[in-house]
């Protein structure tokens, strides 16, 4: 007897994996960064006032007709190639019909049985270097829907007083990547889920076909999970957790769904085929709408668009433009830079590969480039609540700054100030150093005076140093720095103090 499925407590992950083998499948929607929409000349832009980036096509006005965006087709072909897919020489759009107010025509123009790319694969590397091959069923083009805001109540449509709709997103070009069922990952399924989503995000970023910002919904992942008893080959009933909007959440959602399914199944219940909402705060999912395989969208070929013909020449032309696959590139750079795996992973996570690569190309040593970007620049970015990659700091600037330090013309502390002044728009680092007079004080006269003053004001410290506690010199450096506005070279200060006391440095 099947029983209520919602009240069974989730099993622990370990217990779930003892009995069941997870099966996953992913649908990732990638919003393209084309200038205009999929089928209209309205701007494809994020964050503008509601219903400003729309025209009669996006609003589904009577008589309006779609025209396919050629740049979106190129993006789709490039992505298909990057996913090792076959590219269809001939394909069409279809109308996927359902009534919903975020869909202005009450159908979504999508590709149904004729996707532009199909039968591909992607090798995904986990943190420990183990590689899984994910089979790609298809990548097809479609248009995004508008955005509904339910006012009053909980924010869900149920219980809301009214709903507002913004069609700016309606018609934004999307590519949907659908995997084949993924089996055999076992306990590593959640990890693999994150690695796969990361790999897809990196690919679309590398191809420069999407802004690839998950928090803005540029890349949205639907995670399908089902369980089958170990040793079985028959898939269980799946749930589909929709619109998981961070890489970590993808991992957590799969983790939770495995536990939830296992709880339901081991209590003798049956999993409901449905969509699930991801709840970030509790790291759980909640029931969405039932999803039947028999949903009838009354697909038929879109008669307002002509079929897309993709010649082999065109495909080869685009293939030649493909950048090095992100995974290969990372392997190559890690080796070339000699970073440890942990160091490199942090660089990747910070999104600073490009910056470090360029900084190295401008002449910095890889370690120095990493130190600047992962250190001071990241810290400054954090205080500004920005991505380090998004700060207005050019690799050439970093190289210049690094040289100033290496030449001993400024110290690390001054370098930080120079960077701040640079971000405030004061120009190149050497210019800032000159104009602001920040060069390290190496003039012994001024420095000696400052040291003498500090020694006179801190006789107890002097006494300690004379007593052999050389570390106590540190207490004199602070006052000297204060006196010289931080421009003193600490090593030099130490040297002068010892000299004054007649001690050998």
């Amino acid at each position: 007897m099947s029983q209520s499925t919602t009240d069974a407590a989730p099993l622990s992950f370990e217990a779930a994996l003892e009995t069941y083998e997870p099966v996953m499948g992913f649908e990732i929607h990638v919003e393209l960064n084309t200038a205009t929409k999929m089928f209209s000349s309205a701007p494809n832009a994020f964050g503008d006032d509601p219903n400003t980036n729309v025209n009669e096509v996006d609003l589904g006005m009577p008589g309006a007709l779609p025209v396919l965006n050629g740049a979106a087709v190129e993006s789709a072909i490039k992505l298909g190639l990057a996913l090792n897919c076959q590219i269809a020489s001939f394909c069409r759009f279809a109308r996927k019909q359902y009534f919903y107010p975020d869909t202005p025509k009450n159908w979504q123009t999508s590709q149904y049985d004729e996707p532009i790319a199909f039968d591909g694969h992607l090798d995904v590397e986990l943190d420990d270097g183990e590689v899984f091959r994910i089979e790609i069923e298809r990548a097809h083009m479609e248009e995004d829907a508008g955005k509904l805001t339910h006012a009053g109540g909980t924010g869900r449509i149920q219980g809301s007083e009214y709903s507002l709709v913004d069609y700016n997103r309606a018609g934004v070009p999307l590519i949907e990547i659908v995997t084949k069922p993924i089996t055999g990952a076992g306990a590593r399924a959640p990890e693999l889920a994150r690695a796969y989503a990361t790999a897809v995000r990196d690919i679309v970023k590398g191809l420069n076909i999407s802004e690839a910002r998950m928090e803005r919904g540029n890349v949205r992942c639907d995670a399908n999970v089902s369980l089958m008893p170990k040793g079985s080959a028959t898939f269980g009933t799946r749930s589909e957790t929709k619109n998981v909007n961070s890489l970590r959440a993808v991992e957590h959602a799969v983790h939770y769904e495995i536990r939830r399914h296992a709880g339901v199944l081991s209590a003798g219940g049956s999993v409901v085929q449905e969509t699930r909402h991801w709840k970030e705060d509790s790291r759980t999912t909640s029931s969405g709408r039932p999803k039947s395989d028999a949903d009838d969208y009354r697909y038929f070929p879109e008669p307002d668009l002509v079929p897309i013909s993709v010649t082999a020449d065109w495909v080869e032309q685009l293939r030649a433009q493909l950048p090095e696959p992100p995974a290969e590139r990372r392997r190559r750079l890690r080796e070339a830079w000699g970073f440890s795996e942990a160091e490199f992973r942090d660089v990747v996570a910070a999104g600073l590969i490009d910056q470090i690569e360029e900084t190295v190309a401008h002449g910095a040593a890889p370690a120095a480039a990493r130190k600047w970007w992962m250190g001071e620049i990241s810290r400054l970015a954090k205080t500004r609540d920005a991505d380090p990659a998004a700060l207005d700091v050019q690799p050439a600037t970093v190289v210049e700054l690094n040289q100033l330090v290496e030449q001993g013309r400024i110290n690390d502390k001054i370098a930080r100030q120079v960077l701040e002044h640079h971000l405030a728009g004061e120009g190149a680092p050497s210019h800032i150093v000159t104009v602001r007079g920040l060069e390290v004080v190496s003039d012994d006269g001024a420095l000696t005076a400052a040291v003498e003053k500090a020694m006179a004001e801190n006789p107890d410290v002097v006494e300690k140093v004379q007593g052999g506690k050389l570390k106590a010199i540190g207490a004199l450096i602070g006052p000297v720095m204060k006196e010289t506005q931080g421009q003193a070279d600490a090593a030099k200060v130490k040297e002068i103090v010892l000299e004054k006391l007649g001690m050998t440095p």
Partner: protein
Amino acid sequence: MSDLITLTAAQMAAKLAAGEISSVELTQAHLDRIAAVDGEINAFLHVNADEALETAAEVDRLRAAGGAQADALHPLAGVPVAVKDLIVTRGQPTTSGSKMLEGWMSPYDATVVTKIRQAKLPILGKTNLDEFAMGSSTEHSAYGPTRNPWDTSRIPGGSGGGSAAAVAAFEAPLALGTDTGGSIRQPAAVTGTVGTKPTYGSVSRYGAIAMASSLDQIGPAARTVEDAALLHELIAGHDPKDSTSLPEPVPGFGTAAGNHEVAGMRIGVIKQLQGTGYQDAVLARFQESLELLRSAGAQIVEVDCPSFEYALGAYYLIMSSEASSNMARFDGVRYGQRVLPDQPPVTIERVMGATRAAGFGEEVKRRIILGTYALSAGYYDAYYGSAQKIRTLIQRDFEAAFASADVLISPTSPTVAFPLGEKLQDPMAMYLNDIATIPANLAGIPAISVPGGLAEGLPVGVQFLAPARGDAEVYHAGRALEKLLNDDAGTPVWAQVPDMEVAK
């Protein structure tokens, strides 16, 4: 009745160019005629008097000023035109003959309307039609039927009955229509006027409210073949806003319509488009037309199109499938009527349902239901899929026929205009009106209906068809028959319309 309005559009254009008449005078004469007779005819859903007169005055001003701007005027500048209310226009309501769009103002112009504005033809107003162009009698308009100027107790054809009746009743010299299965040609046939369905893709559909996207085509309605050709030439051409628009430049149809020589022209009589279901008088006039053409030197041959037997069935599946989808956008959310349900709860689904229940008429609902069923999972292959195969077979029939004939010929409609109400309760009988016009839409080829004489005082239409992109050929053949019949009868059919001035 002003004599001006009984001129052909070509004659009006010539008199305007020669400075013999002004466009304001000409436009006002048509507005007066509309005021006098349209209470009876109901061809217009909206009369655009002020803007039409403004455009006319502008043309007159430019012509009077002379110089380059006057020389640059389009030949039809200043000749008024009416626009079927399925085609969107800024500044005037566009209803599609439906309650659903009552009071709706389009924020943009259809491409054909843009072309008409650029050429400075005064737009007299919007003409009546079956709701969303679904019908063959204009009785399915939510704003009352249009009446046939030849007998106001009869239908003017449909869906473009308003445009055809306006032209026949001298309310407009030119009008735009749309033809999905005969909506320009069948009204032309039963009102003694001329109507063309152009090659699919040769006139932009942008701004024509879609019924069946793969079949719809905008075309001209006029009293003479030459006038239709001139308007066709103006509206044709590639449009980047319509993906199905053909890239080729438009040939000069006016020249083709000036050629009435048929010696040596091979004219194919379609075996399947005659006989049972066609009125004797219609077939009699058709035979007389064939005789006239033969006597003028045309070579009349018979062609066999065996798949035409299935054309009506295939058409009603494809048309209703596409229409069911195209009608989906009318839901009360973004524009047009919004009707709240009688009982709570007021959910979006229930608002959409109540809006569509109240906003759509019976024929529209009938086609939505038929098309929704035909596209449903499990039925798609049997219905929509099979219909598409029939469509291919019909295209092949045409290809074979055009191997032995330059143009094909048939009666346009199996009957003359029938009395209002006669077929309203019998959809199948109504659908059979389009039996001869549908194949051209399924194959995407051009076709024209020209007057073929009168049967018991009511007009009969003759249809010519040509291969895709052969629009010039239908004008050539149409002009030939028009001239032969005019010479034979001593007067054009359109000039014999009863005087129906009902108000002074």
